[in-house]
């Protein structure tokens, strides 16, 4: 019978008893299009080699050909689980580069939507993580809450997922009373709903067995692997950009950064659950302290960039062809480079801009947490079992759109 078995990968010397398996890009547990090549010894992973790039869309190149305002639309598609947080991160970076002032009210609004995005993203993470480990009911319960948030997004800015809510120098729309009432209702009911999910998994012996001592990373190792976000804090490293480089209105918020100790999957799970509760309390503070005032600054650029002074748009009219040619006015923006990081649900999302004074960035580099998390998979998965790999991919909370850019 063995005559018919033909492995695609050539077997190297010493590897004859290894079982090579290629997980993904189409696999239910890879959260999109991650591909992991595994060398198995029975069920134990001897070598794990993640392959990314199946969703590489050329973000950074494309950004060089679009104006700063248009690039905002791109950032929605980075980490599509928390598009709002990406919007805010991008705007904070560009505002620093172009020295644009943001009014206080829109800072609060940004904080609010950031935390809503964090909740939405963490709920999705909990859902998929639980589904990966086999608890499919948690998956659907989490989506119930997430839907409420998405409906609030839809009412706020007209789109559920790719929000494009922020604007350079402010935000796009003001909130209404009905949105805030909905949000308040959500904030009130959220902790008890979270309790519900926890009944199903938190103390469940199967869940504990599947998560404790799985994918353990020590604190120093985690820093060396450039992990950020809850994946780092699960190992006990106190690094949260909301505290280290406060942006938006995080300066005015009282919240704590939950830290784990053991650095295993369960610690990261607890960290994120606590983070959700903290986000909930930040949301409540936002609702209570929302200041009045304008939502967009006076020096905010127009949607059609480059905008001032005296925007010049030439229209090339060979009347028969009627093609539109936009001659961009080489208005002087700041020249220089700047790196601004924000804390998105996945970790540290940074934008590095090099500007040469045009309306388009000269170079935009996106420091995406998922990319570095996936590179850590190699180290974390070694020696664990096949089923653990699924748990580790889940706990790292990777999203391929952000990873591959």
């Amino acid at each position, binding site marked *: 019978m063995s005559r018919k078995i033909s492995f695609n990968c050539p077997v190297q010397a010493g590897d004859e008893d290894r079982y090579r398996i290629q997980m993904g890009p189409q696999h239910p547990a890879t959260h999109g299009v991650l591909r992991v090549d595994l060398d198995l010894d029975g069920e134990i992973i001897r070598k794990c080699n993640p392959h990314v790039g199946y969703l590489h869309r050329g973000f950074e190149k494309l950004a060089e050909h679009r104006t700063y305002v248009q690039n905002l639309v791109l950032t929605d598609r980075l980490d599509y689980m928390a598009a709002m947080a990406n919007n805010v991160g991008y705007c904070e970076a560009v505002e620093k580069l172009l020295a644009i002032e943001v009014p206080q009210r829109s800072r609060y609004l940004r904080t609010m939507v950031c935390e809503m995005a964090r909740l939405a993203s963490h709920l999705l993470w909990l859902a998929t993580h639980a589904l990966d480990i086999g608890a499919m009911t948690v998956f659907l319960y989490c989506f119930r809450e997430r839907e409420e948030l998405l409906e609030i997004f839809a009412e706020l800015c007209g789109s559920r997922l790719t929000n494009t809510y922020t604007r350079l120098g402010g935000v796009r729309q003001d909130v209404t009373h009905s949105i805030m009432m909905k949000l308040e209702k959500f904030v009130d009911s959220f902790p008890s709903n979270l309790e519900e999910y926890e009944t199903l998994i938190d103390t469940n012996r199967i869940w504990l067995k599947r998560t404790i001592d799985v994918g353990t990373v020590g604190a120093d190792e985690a820093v060396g692997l450039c992990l950020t976000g809850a994946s780092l804090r699960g190992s006990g490293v106190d690094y949260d950009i909301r505290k280290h480089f406060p942006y938006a209105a995080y300066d005015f918020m009282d919240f704590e950064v939950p830290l784990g100790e053991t650095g295993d999957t369960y610690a990261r799970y607890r960290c994120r659950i606590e983070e959700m509760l903290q986000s909930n309390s930040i949301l409540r503070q936002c609702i209570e302290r929302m200041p009045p005032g304008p939502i967009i600054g006076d020096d905010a650029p127009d949607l059609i960039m480059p905008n001032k002074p005296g925007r010049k748009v030439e229209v090339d009219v060979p009347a028969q062809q009627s093609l539109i040619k936009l001659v961009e006015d080489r208005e002087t923006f700041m020249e220089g480079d700047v790196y601004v990081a924000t804390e998105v649900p996945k970790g540290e999302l940074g934008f590095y801009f090099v500007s040469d004074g045009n309306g388009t960035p*000269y*170079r935009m580099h996106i420091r995406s947490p998922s990319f570095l998390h996936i*590179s850590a998979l190699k180290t974390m998965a070694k020696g664990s079992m096949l089923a653990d790999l699924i748990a580790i991919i889940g706990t790292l909370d990777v999203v391929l759109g952000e990873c591959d850019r």
Partner: protein
Amino acid sequence: MESTGIIPRLEVSYPDDVLHSYQYCGQDVVLTRKKHILDICSFIRDQCAMNHLMFLCAVDNSRRKEAIGKNEYERFEVVYQFYSMTTKHSIRIRAQVPDDDCSIESITSLWPGADCLERECFDLMGIHFSSHPDLRRILMPEDWKGHPLRKEYPLRGIGEWAGYETLKEKSLELRTFDYRSSQKGNE
């Protein structure tokens, strides 16, 4: 962020390598030569307690206004941003990499997490990282031609990737087995 005092220390320790330093938007930036970049990085990590590598990327300077005509700029540069979680200081190193010798030392021995970032730089910008354990393309397919983030590379790419061409041929060939086309042929 106030001045951290790291730049003077760097200038003292590596006088030949530090080209220029400045502060922009409150961020410290140092331009260096590429030769001793590994030493500089380990100095920064060990002496200045900058344990967190925030990002690593490459920039193509060829069309950059400020770079044109200044001889301290080379064609490429590799940018490192470091941060200290204890002292809350950060510093950015811009190591200049010339076009004709497009390689720089890898810092994976210091930060294992830099592995993927350096592969990305190699993939998109074509910078070689010597002593990198496994320098392959990471985002683009293995047999992709060119390095997309270089400035001369057009947005829509040059030519078509061979793998996609074969796919298109294959799909044309398989179309004959398709329900719809077999219907059309008979009508």
